[in-house]
């Protein structure tokens, strides 16, 4: 026995697993032989129920059992575990740990074998938990096939069968005998030593994998669970679940992979010594997250349930690419309030899922036709187009449209007009490539293709009641014009409004008439800079940073919106922070080539952020960690 358990390679899988036939009588003989050297635990009837417990009579061993049964966790990571004994008085004395009991768990369903691998992941990581390791190393795991019930969803979790992590596995054959599959070197040694007749038997061909049917199924693949949860942290479902939850912790007590624990000292009656024990604890309990002299940081039951789901399906998946749920169904089987993972996850998935497969594939890429109402030449190279869309839209300043000229393609253009609901919008187009040059040739009455609006713009509400500093470089003014028109439409809601605008030359200024009108109107304070060329307006010479000299803003009540080429942010942001603008009060326009607008094509992805989905307008705090956003 000792040699079997102490072989350092004992738990390694066999290079060629062997399959041998054995009868029920031989199984019982095998158990009896094992009992000479191991404590054998198996499923048996006790009182009114089935339980996994120490087996006295091999004939009592049940190998075909329903999954409604506590998991083998109680033997590998028991609820009550002495860590060490201590004595008090005359110096503290810690007694050494005693060796763990060599044990055979005879009959574990595949899901529970998977659960042991989860425990291994969690408890062996870093400083390995030696109390668990001691038990794990001297515990032989013998698997057995199961028949799922209505709560099982192992087929969705990929845990209905198991390829490794067991020493032996019993497959039931028609007619009452079994095929035993060896899964480890020590499993093979065990069989040869304690069931020599079976061990000497010639191998048989492996069984074809059996297909199991669970009526409870996830509608989404396992790999999608973590990304799904990522999106639903703030979802109201957690509050709903919290309102139904009794906080009884049955879900975690019964879970074969939950291992959170408490540690406490239990004194002997004579107070001369005692033991430090660990007992199961639960994230669902009051006081689990209690901090000395403070409140619980996860006191709300909805937050506690969310934590359980995130631990099971996201956090450990992110770490080990293995969910901490094995689909055994114990949590839903035991929950009086019927908090069940599969319907909950399916519901979240259904809400998140895109509309059902379209009958016209590619519809989301199909533009609608918009009529050009009006064209104005803004500069030598830029024209303003007023479009009439087939139906009214609502948008925030900073959102964009995808505009196509059929035959030449499609490109994103920021909406330059005021953020009011309607069917007429302005865009500004600089003639640069073939598409934009073609657009410049269009006249009122012509049509273009339009999709959108897309993206997320400036949160106008967050600017209300505050001073607003707008900083535009070159074509960046297009976006800020929309914001500015939105502000001017309800001017009384905002404090002081200051516009800083810089371009290569005064000739490159967009919306010149409006700039002059704004400047003269007194509703906002406009300051202009130009690097070169004639200077009919006698603006500040140099780039836009020159406008920051002697700039008088009250930083604590100022929100800033900045829009310009990426290189502009590198020099501007430090100036803004020197003024004292808060990171979450600074909004940047990070437009990239947002080719599809649907978060798919990847062309506008800055590190891990998709500009068309999350932007193009971002609070600085959200993007400051992105190396590609501002550094380049």
């Amino acid at each position: 026995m000792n040699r079997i358990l102490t072989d350092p390679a004992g738990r390694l899988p066999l290079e060629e697993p062997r399959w041998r036939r054995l009868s029920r009588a031989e199984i019982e003989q095998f158990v009896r032989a094992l009992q000479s050297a191991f404590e054998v635990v198996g499923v048996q009837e006790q009182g009114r129920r089935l339980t996994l417990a120490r087996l006295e009579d091999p004939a009592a061993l049940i190998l075909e059992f329903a999954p409604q049964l506590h998991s083998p966790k109680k033997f590998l990571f028991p609820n009550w575990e002495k860590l060490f004994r201590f004595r008090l008085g005359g110096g503290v004395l810690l007694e050494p740990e005693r060796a763990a009991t060599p044990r055979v768990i005879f009959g574990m369903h595949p899901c529970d074998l998977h659960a042991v691998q989860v425990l291994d992941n969690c408890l062996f990581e870093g400083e390995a938990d030696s109390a668990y390791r001691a038990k794990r190393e001297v515990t032989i795991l013998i698997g057995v096939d199961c028949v799922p019930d209505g709560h099982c969803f192992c087929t969705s979790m990929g845990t209905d069968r198991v390829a490794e992590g067991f020493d032996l596995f019993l497959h039931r054959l028609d007619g009452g005998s079994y095929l035993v599959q060896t899964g480890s070197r020590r499993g093979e040694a065990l069989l040869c030593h304690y069931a020599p007749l079976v061990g000497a038997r010639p191998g048989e061909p492996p069984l074809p994998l059996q297909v199991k049917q669970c009526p409870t199924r996830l509608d989404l693949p396992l790999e999608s669970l973590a990304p799904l949860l990522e999106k639903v942290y703030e979802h109201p479902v957690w509050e709903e679940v919290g309102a139904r939850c009794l906080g009884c912790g049955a879900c975690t007590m019964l879970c074969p992979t939950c291992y959170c624990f408490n540690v406490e000292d239990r004194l002997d009656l004579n107070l001369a010594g005692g033991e430090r024990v660990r007992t199961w604890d639960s994230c669902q309990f009051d006081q689990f997250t209690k901090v000395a002299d403070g409140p619980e940081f996860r006191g709300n039951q909805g937050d506690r349930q969310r934590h359980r789901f995130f631990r099971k399906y996201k956090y450990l998946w992110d770490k080990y690419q293995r969910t901490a749920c094995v689909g055994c169904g114990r949590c839903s089987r035991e929950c009086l309030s019927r908090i069940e993972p599969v319907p909950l996850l399916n519901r979240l998935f259904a809400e998140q899922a895109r509309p059902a497969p379209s009958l016209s594939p590619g519809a989301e890429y199909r533009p609608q036709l918009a009529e050009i109402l009006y064209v104005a030449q803004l500069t030598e190279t830029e024209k303003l187009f007023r479009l009439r869309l087939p139906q009214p839209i609502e948008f925030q300043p900073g959102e964009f449209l995808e505009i196509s000229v059929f035959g030449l393609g499609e490109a994103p253009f920021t909406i330059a007009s005021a953020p009011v609901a309607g069917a007429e919008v302005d865009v500004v187009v600089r003639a640069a490539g073939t598409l934009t040059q073609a657009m410049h040739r269009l006249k009122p009455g012509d049509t273009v293709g339009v999709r959108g609006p897309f993206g997320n713009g400036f949160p106008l509400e967050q600017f209300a009641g505050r001073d607003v500093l707008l900083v535009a470089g070159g074509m960046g003014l297009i976006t800020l014009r929309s914001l500015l028109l939105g502000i001017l439409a309800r001017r009384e809601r905002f404090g002081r409004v200051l516009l800083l605008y810089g371009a290569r030359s005064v000739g490159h200024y967009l919306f010149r008439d409006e700039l002059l009108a704004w400047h003269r109107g007194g509703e906002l304070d406009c300051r202009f800079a130009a690097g070169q060329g004639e200077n009919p307006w006698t603006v500040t010479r140099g780039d836009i940073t020159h406008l920051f000299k002697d700039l008088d803003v009250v930083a604590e009540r100022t929100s800033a919106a900045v829009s310009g080429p990426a290189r502009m942010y590198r020099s501007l942001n430090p100036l803004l922070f020197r003024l004292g603008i808060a990171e979450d009060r600074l909004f940047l326009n990070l437009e990239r080539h947002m080719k599809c607008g649907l978060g798919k094509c990847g062309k506008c992805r800055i590190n891990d952020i998709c500009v068309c989905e999350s932007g193009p307008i971002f609070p600085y705090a959200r993007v400051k960690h992105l190396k590609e956003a501002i550094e380049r």
Partner: protein
Amino acid sequence: MKPRVGFFDFTCCEGCQLTILNLEEEFLELLELVEIVEFREILQAPAAALDIAFVEGSIAGPEEAARLRRIRERSRTLVALGACADNAGVNALSHFRAPEELGESAFGRVVEGIEERLPRPLECFVAVDARVPGCPIDGREFLGLLQALLVGRAPELPAYAVCVECKLGEYPCTFEQGTVCLGPVTRAGCNALCIAGGDRCRGCRGLVDNPRSQPYRQILEQHGLTVEDILAEFRIFNLPPEKS
């Protein structure tokens, strides 16, 4: 000098003190640690000052209240022993009947001196430092509390519900058998004794600190109980706050 300990009883069945005597060997070991100076079940003469007074029973009349106050005055620590002392226990069911009706049902006649709003728990009359809940108490929990008091550790009761111990004991859920159970809202510490014995939990240990009453009520309603049934179930051992 060993700490001096006394046991006292008011309106009760004295079952909690019997539970302590039934600890037998552990009770004898206990005597190594403390000196029991008053215990009507085994001793006669009263003593002076006490380190710890264990008080069983609820307070059913003014003379009981006065005696309790005198015990409080001469005890450093006062512990409510058992459900009657802790929350008035089954005695408090009398709150829901008129005094005449009570006299009639117990003695066959109207009895003078049955007061309304009595019996009540100890804490309605004196400061209670610690408590051992249950009807009767759990002997081990009593020992644990005594140890905590002796080593100067704040005594703690489980903050979780009986369901936890029921699951750990692998007992089939009483709800599954169509029986309603107070386990989900009742403080653990009894090792789900009643459920192990085939009964349901009737809540003798009192509610957990934070009972999830709303979801629990929904579950009871799903099992066909009305609000009146639910209250009757609660009242067996849990005196509603407005009555105490």
